[in-house]
């Protein structure tokens, strides 16, 4: 009986050790087949054009590189922010992953990235400078995969109904929003919910700070934007509140709910990313987009943002990973992703035949707009704290009636709170 039990214990130990060895990281790359673990927020099984383009690009890459297989995991941005630092600390980071531009330095600070290989420096035709996609040591860790910036979206039908012209300054936006609100619409769509990483308010803030030429951080990474220029953003939100032009659910609204409101025709105006232009065009023909309204500086230039691709810390397949990144950001894949409405990042891509077709007009327009109306920003490693701080400051502005300057001070304090 005892012998039997010891035998059982031995078998258990052997099984456990085999299971544990199965969990260990993959072996370094040799000449044989390689499987790359790739994290993306897009689900290729979905029927939308972006997902379809991603699926086709991966399939085409695998066909062109039979020794490299792509193991795609669909991970939302929120989950990525949690899981990437953990997986990197455990030596289990994906070989390649997508990341939102403002979060690249934060993830680099968390040790999530491997440095880009030397081959990366040979690609030089990025439409916008890439030196801001760097880690704490200043070395570039990611390359742009897709570009976007902010634009003013408006519902032409609502504006015509209230007899308003397209606003060109933020003061005019408040006036038009007031009239639209009086007519029963949400005058200006934004949201202070932090359930989606405060996407809408942080994106708008990011672009607005570029418009008023306000740096967000000092050289040592301290948030420092509660200035006269920074206050202009808070004052704009405060003026919208005074005009009763913000949505009744602004505290709990997200990027998604505002976009849904635009598409369904209940929101008159909103500042959103240019990536929405293609989907809005198909969802509601009354929706138009134009450049950002002028700030006090008279500037309409927002911030270049978008998605990037980088190599995970500790990847054993950096060469194959770069090959994949190079393909995904290259002309062939770029043309495919443009059919899904995304704006490719390399000049060479725009020489593909697709960009001469009428279907490419919107993407070409957005690409030209991004090039002329946005510039990249250098970020610090606390974007998530800043974004949450902006949401909470917005909630206080709505629920506690705080002023524009209190809004900006509160967001700055939240970003600096250790």
């Amino acid at each position, binding site marked *: 009986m*005892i012998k039997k*039990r010891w035998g059982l*214990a031995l078998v258990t130990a052997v099984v456990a050790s085999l299971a544990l060895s199965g969990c260990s990281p993959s072996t370094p790359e040799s000449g044989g087949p390689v499987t790359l673990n790739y994290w993306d927020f897009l689900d290729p099984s979905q029927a939308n054009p972006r997902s379809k383009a991603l699926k086709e690009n991966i399939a085409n890459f695998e066909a062109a590189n039979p020794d490299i297989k792509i193991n795609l995991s669909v991970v939302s941005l929120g989950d990525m*922010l*949690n899981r990437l*630092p*953990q997986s*990197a*600390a455990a030596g289990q980071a994906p070989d390649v992953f997508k990341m939102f531009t403002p979060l690249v330095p934060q993830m680099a*600070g*968390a*040790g999530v990235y491997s440095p880009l290989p030397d081959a990366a420096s040979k690609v030089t035709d990025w439409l916008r400078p890439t030196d801001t996609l760097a880690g704490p040591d200043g070395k570039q860790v990611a390359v742009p995969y897709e570009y976007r910036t902010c634009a003013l979206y408006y519902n032409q039908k609502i504006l015509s109904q209230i007899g308003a012209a397209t606003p060109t300054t933020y003061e005019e936006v408040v006036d038009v929003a007031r009239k639209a609100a009086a007519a029963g619409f949400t005058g200006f769509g934004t949201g*202070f*919910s*932090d*359930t989606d990483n405060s996407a809408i308010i942080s994106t708008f803030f990011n672009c607005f700070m570029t418009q008023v030429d306000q740096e967000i951080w000092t050289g040592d990474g301290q948030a420092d934007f509660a200035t006269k220029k920074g206050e202009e953003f808070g004052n704009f939100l405060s003026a919208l509140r005074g005009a009763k032009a913000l949505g*009744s*659910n*602004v*505290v*709990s609204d997200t990027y998604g*709910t505002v976009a*849904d*409101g635009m598409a*369904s025709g*209940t929101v008159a105006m909103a500042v959103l990313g240019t990536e929405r232009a293609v989907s809005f065009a198909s969802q509601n023909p009354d929706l138009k987009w134009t450049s950002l309204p002028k700030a006090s500086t008279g500037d309409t230039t927002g911030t270049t943002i978008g998605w990037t691709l980088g190599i995970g810390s500790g990847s054993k397949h950096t060469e194959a990973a770069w090959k994949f990144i190079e393909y995904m950001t290259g002309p062939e894949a770029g043309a495919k992703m443009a059919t899904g409405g995304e704006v490719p990042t390399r000049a060479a891509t725009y020489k593909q035949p697709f960009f001469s077709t009428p279907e490419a007009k919107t993407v070409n327009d957005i690409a030209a707009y991004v090039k002329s109306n946005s510039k990249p920003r250098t970020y610090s490693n606390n974007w*998530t*704290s800043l974004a*949450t701080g902006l*949401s*909470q400051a917005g*909630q*206080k502005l*709505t*629920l*506690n009636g705080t002023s524009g300057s209190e809004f900006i001070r509160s967001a700055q304090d939240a970003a600096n*709170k*250790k």
Partner: protein
Amino acid sequence: MSTNSRTRTSSQTATPPTGIQASRRARKDRMVWLYVVPVTAVFLFVFVGPLIYTAWTALHETSYYQIGKFSGLNSFTKLFSDSDLPARIWTTLVFSLGALVIALPAGLLSALVLNNLHRFKRSVRSLFLLPWLMSQATAGTIWLWFLNPNYGPASAITKSLGFGPTDVFSSPNSALVAVTLMTAWWSYPQAMLLFLGALQTIPGELYESLKVDGGGIRHAFVNITLPHLRNTIVSVVVVLLMLYVQMVTIILVTTRGGPIGSTETLSMRVYNQMFDKFDLSGASATAILLFAVNIVLTLVAIRFRRKESL
């Protein structure tokens, strides 16, 4: 029982064990370790180890998931000097006790209904269990959709009745009430199952005797059901309170602790410190505080149970 032990003791005293018997007993005693060692190892690995590691982390500076130099009680000093902490503890108590006050009677009532049901018992039981069968994330998402002020069915109903849209997540008080109700809805089947098990152990003869004596339903509930359920009620209170104090997912999915921190319980604060601010040390200090709250609750419950057994 006492006679048998005495007999055994006297026989053992009378005949001292032989060498073979002694070696058998020693072998038997050694075999106990076969059972004790794996359990102890698992306990150390899944409970004591992480607890020590959490305390260790709280005593060090951290950068993301890297542990830096020893910082003493800095994290705890920061935690207890945070002006938001009393509000977070208050939110935790309101949320936990609020959900308990709803889930406990709801669980008991559903258990009573199920216990007295003679037809469609399985179907009704499945129906009552439905919320608990969902993951917390699914439950939160469903409620988020249901209460959405723009397209949620709740809004459609309130609008058709002439009220405005359901805008529960936009105000601090209504958001806290909403997450509390959702949590109670999701968790009451757990109480129901425990109560149902206890109800089925009450002898039917007691109810019959009371009926013969002219007692009604109220008398049966107060004089038979409740006394028999007293221990179970204490257990349910402990189980549910621990669940609520540690609850994260439903709050995360619906409000993430907002608006203005009104739904940020201590557990939610741990999550936000960890995954929003990447403050591992601060999150560990809050987690230790949370652990202390749980210990207090458990000790209170043990005290109740002891009183019961006296």
